[in-house]
């Protein structure tokens, strides 16, 4: 069995030798480069005068301002149009030949003000409020009135920039028949669907190696539409790769939500009512981003209840347009904000009521699963009380060390939604020489799912893992696919791989029985061999395969695995944090993650996901966040926008338990986002414990 073992990544060999192929490694004959002129104003009417050929919105999407501006720009960084030249140096010289005349319009970047509709973010909007929905259960107002303890306040989860090490980028080439694109994207198939409908032309999309995304490469970006369009119009291969500053001013903006809340409890800290309003800052009204982020605002609002048994609750969810970069998914996609809100509230209660942090969670936690939270989300399996019990010795040890070393302990509990649908595909086939090829419709970009898929296929087919090759990211090699996001790939994509592998195993059995000339019921499949139970005669794997090829039996199957419902991992994380009382600097010393993510397919890779997610969560708490001045983000490089280094990263430890598996064939739940979901409140709660008051804005940064 490979499943459950820390199998080393099959992806590594190319990447450690510099043989990866990322989009900017791709060079086509006669290829030219594209660069975009971007708005320098948050809201304005624009007129472009250019001494060089310039392709603006009137060329690419006449009469519209999205994806490319024709007349009215709605955020700093919005693409106004493109120039095409010999190389990156030339196109950046050409940008200086383009003159933009702005007629400034009033702008608004604060969603609380934008909600009043005194300033329209975009003239074609009826209202800046893009989303309004209310979730209600029980009688929260009455419960609040009857609660002996009520706390209230406002929590802010700041705007972040995903900042993957590789920016976006695309190569597009119209071959006379269809448009071929290579893009740094989270899904070739999703990109293809969007581009075909925009271009009204067939598109072949390839996701080459991708240098991270963290949600920022789910949507199809304005530039991807524009470059694909221009390749069709100009008939030459085109490449676009933005600079880091361009990337940060136009992509990857996430989070940016606030919660105003009233929470009622008993004197023992048992929550009796929760009433709140979530305001999500959607940025400018780009439809692709809206489709992505509006769902995240709802995720935040519904997950505010956390892993706690809260039956009287009302949350109003608002998504508000502003003159900022259109907001999109960032690792966790709405769930981190919800978790930050409830876990901050838990810690505030602990401080206000003088009840231990772990104890107050014990008093509120969901007692048994499956459990449907008051806003209709089902927590499918697991034992929340038990994981708290398991965490106790670690927590006691942290508390002891906190006293001895003058540190503070922060706690955070979470429950997550992962494994979103609607479906995923897998194709498995065997070449005539016996090599097994697994193709996934998902689009891994660093998470190592290729290795997990190989483990799954090798186990089902009972073959050495070396015999299995895994591919993805090309719309020409599998019929379709969804993509990699929502911590869904191993679970949903892996279940498709498992089913396709089982289907292939049945085919191999049939082929083997034909070669052995016996009924299929007479044979068994074991260790890659097909054996006639009667005679004891066995064919090894290669004999079965070559027999099938001789007889003309196809060994190529595709499975489509439909998802009926998401699955919920959960856990409790804790950190030891030092707070320098003189400088105000907080530093995370030790971090412990305790998770139940169902069956763990590869513990080494799962732990890697926790480390990565946790560091991003720590960074949201202590380092990252956009800084705005006059409607523009001013920290648009990695000196001013703080991405942590190894020095800021604490020692981390990961423990996992399996009290609940998912109902998917893999039995697994997602872990890709869990670290980022919970680490932020863990750190903020530790800082708050140090100070004896709840800190409600991030990052915690002395100033």
């Amino acid at each position, binding site marked *: 069995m490979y499943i459950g073992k820390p199998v080393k990544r099959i992806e590594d060999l190319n990447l450690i030798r510099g043989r990866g192929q990322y989009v900017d490694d791709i060079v086509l004959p006669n290829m030219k480069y594209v660069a975009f002129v971007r708005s320098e104003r948050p809201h304005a009417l624009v007129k472009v005068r250019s001494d060089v050929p310039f392709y603006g919105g009137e060329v690419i999407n006449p009469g519209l301002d999205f994806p490319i501006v024709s007349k009215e720009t709605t955020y700093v960084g919005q693409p106004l149009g493109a120039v095409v030249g010999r190389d990156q140096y030339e196109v950046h010289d050409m940008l200086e030949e383009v003159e933009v005349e702005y007629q400034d319009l009033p702008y608004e970047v604060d969603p609380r003000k934008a909600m009043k509709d005194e300033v329209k973010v975009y003239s074609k909007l009826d209202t800046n409020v893009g989303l309004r929905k209310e979730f209600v259960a029980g009688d929260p107002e009455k419960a609040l009135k009857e609660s002996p303890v009520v706390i209230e306040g406002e929590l802010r989860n700041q705007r972040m920039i995903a900042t993957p090490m590789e920016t976006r980028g695309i190569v597009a080439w119209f071959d006379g028949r269809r448009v071929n694109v290579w893009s740094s994207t989270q899904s070739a198939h999703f990109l293809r669907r969007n581009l075909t409908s925009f271009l009204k032309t067939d598109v072949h999309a390839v996701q080459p190696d991708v240098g991270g995304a963290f949600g920022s490469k789910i949507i199809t970006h304005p530039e991807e539409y524009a470059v694909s369009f221009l390749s069709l119009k100009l008939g030459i291969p085109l490449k676009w790769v933005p600079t880091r*500053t361009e990337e940060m001013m136009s992509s990857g903006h996430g989070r940016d939500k606030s919660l105003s809340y009233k929470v009622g409890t008993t004197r023992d800290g048992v929550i009796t009512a929760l009433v709140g309003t979530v305001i999500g800052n959607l940025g400018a009204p780009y439809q692709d981003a809206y489709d992505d982020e509006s769902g995240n605002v709802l995720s935040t609002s519904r997950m505010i209840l956390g892993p706690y048994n809260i039956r009287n609750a009302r949350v109003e969810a608002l998504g508000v347009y502003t003159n900022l970069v259109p907001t999109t998914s960032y690792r966790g996609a709405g769930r981190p904000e919800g978790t930050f809100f409830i876990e901050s509230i838990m810690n505030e209660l602990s401080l206000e009521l003088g009840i231990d942090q772990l104890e107050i969670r014990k008093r509120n936690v969901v007692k048994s699963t499956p459990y449907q939270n008051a806003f209709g989300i089902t927590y499918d399996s697991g034992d929340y009380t038990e994981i708290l019990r398991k965490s106790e010795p670690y927590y006691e040890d942290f508390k002891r060390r906190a006293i001895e070393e003058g540190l503070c302990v922060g706690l955070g509990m979470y429950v997550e939604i992962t494994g979103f649908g609607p479906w995923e595909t897998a194709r498995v086939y065997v070449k005539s020489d016996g090599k097994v090829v697994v193709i996934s419709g998902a689009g891994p970009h660093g998470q190592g799912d290729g290795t997990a898929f190989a483990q799954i296929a090798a186990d089902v087919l009972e073959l050495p893992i070396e015999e299995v090759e895994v591919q993805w990211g090309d719309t020409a090699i599998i019929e379709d696919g969804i993509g990699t996001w929502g911590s869904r790939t191993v679970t949903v994509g892996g279940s498709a791989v498992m089913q396709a592998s089982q289907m292939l195993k049945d085919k191999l059995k049939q082929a083997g029985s034909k070669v052995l000339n016996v009924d299929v019921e007479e044979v068994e499949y074991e260790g890659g061999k097909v054996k006639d139970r009667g005679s004891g005669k066995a064919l090894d794997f290669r004999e079965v395969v070559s027999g099938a090829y001789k007889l003309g039996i196809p060994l190529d199957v595709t499975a489509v695995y439909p998802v009926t419902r998401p699955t919920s991992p959960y856990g409790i994380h804790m950190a030891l944090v030092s707070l320098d009382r003189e400088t105000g600097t907080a530093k995370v010393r030790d971090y412990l993650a305790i998770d139940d993510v169902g069956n763990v397919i590869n513990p080494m890779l799962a732990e890697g996901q926790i480390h990565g997610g946790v560091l991003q969560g720590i960074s949201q708490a202590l380092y990252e966040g956009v800084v705005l001045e006059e409607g523009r983000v001013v920290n648009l490089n990695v000196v001013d926008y703080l991405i942590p280094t190894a020095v800021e990263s604490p020692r981390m430890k990961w423990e996992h338990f399996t009290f609940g598996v998912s109902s998917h064939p893999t039995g697994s739940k997602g872990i890709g986002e869990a670290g980022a979901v919970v680490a932020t409140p863990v750190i903020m709660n530790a800082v708050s414990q140090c100070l004896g008051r709840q800190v409600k804005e991030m990052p915690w940064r002395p100033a």
Partner: protein
Amino acid sequence: MYPPKFGYVIPENIHEAMEFLESHDDSRPLAGGHSLIPMLKLRIIRPSYLVELKTLKDLQGIKKGSEYRIGALTTHYEISKSGIPLLSQTASVIADPQVRNMGTIGGSISNADPLSDYPAPLIATNAKVVVISKRGERSVPFDQFQKDMFTTDLSQGELVKEVVVPAMDGYRTDYEKLERKAGDYAIVGVAVAIKEEEGVVKDVRIGLTAVNNKAMRAKSSEEILMNNALSDDLISKAASAAVEYANPSSDIRGSAEYKKKMVKVMTERALKKVRK
């Protein structure tokens, strides 16, 4: 990301370099390139020529006599490894390892970024800058070399040849850098050098960086400490006095108010570290 066009000159010797620089107003010398090239990439400077210095022998190497003579092209890494009191410690916390492998002391002080690290120890130790041009050499005290932020005493055609730092025998020294994260510029940097005899301060120098247009000596802090024993109380008083030499601006690294407070904190920490 993409520099504008420029010409490139590889001079045979330092005289050729100085001659070219003097006769081309908008030419710039290129040393480690870790401030110049970033500025080119952002197109905030547009020189007509870059004059490559890295092959020029006259600007390299560290000589030790009664003082350290540090060639302008000596890298931060080389300085960090050469055991120069105060300066080596300071060099070791500049930026990150790759930058330290390329960045040079001559380039750093010629660029005169108000947030850079070297000015704190250089002003504290009364370092001198040897400037060379076609007309010969001149030696300038560091506090006169730095005129203002990004502005030095250098004229067109002049280059920093070497930095001369006293050996500081018998001194204990420390550089305290407060930073948001590893590799960043200082929020506040404080350099301290102190000489005690029989428990009494006989000399003390305190240099502050990142809190003014250029580095400053905290003179009244020094006076508080001179001829006294370094008690906690006195250190605290001296550290408080250092704040009056700080006139920081509010920016992404913190408010002016915060930076002023941190001058006290960092000065206090530096003084406590050098106390025997």
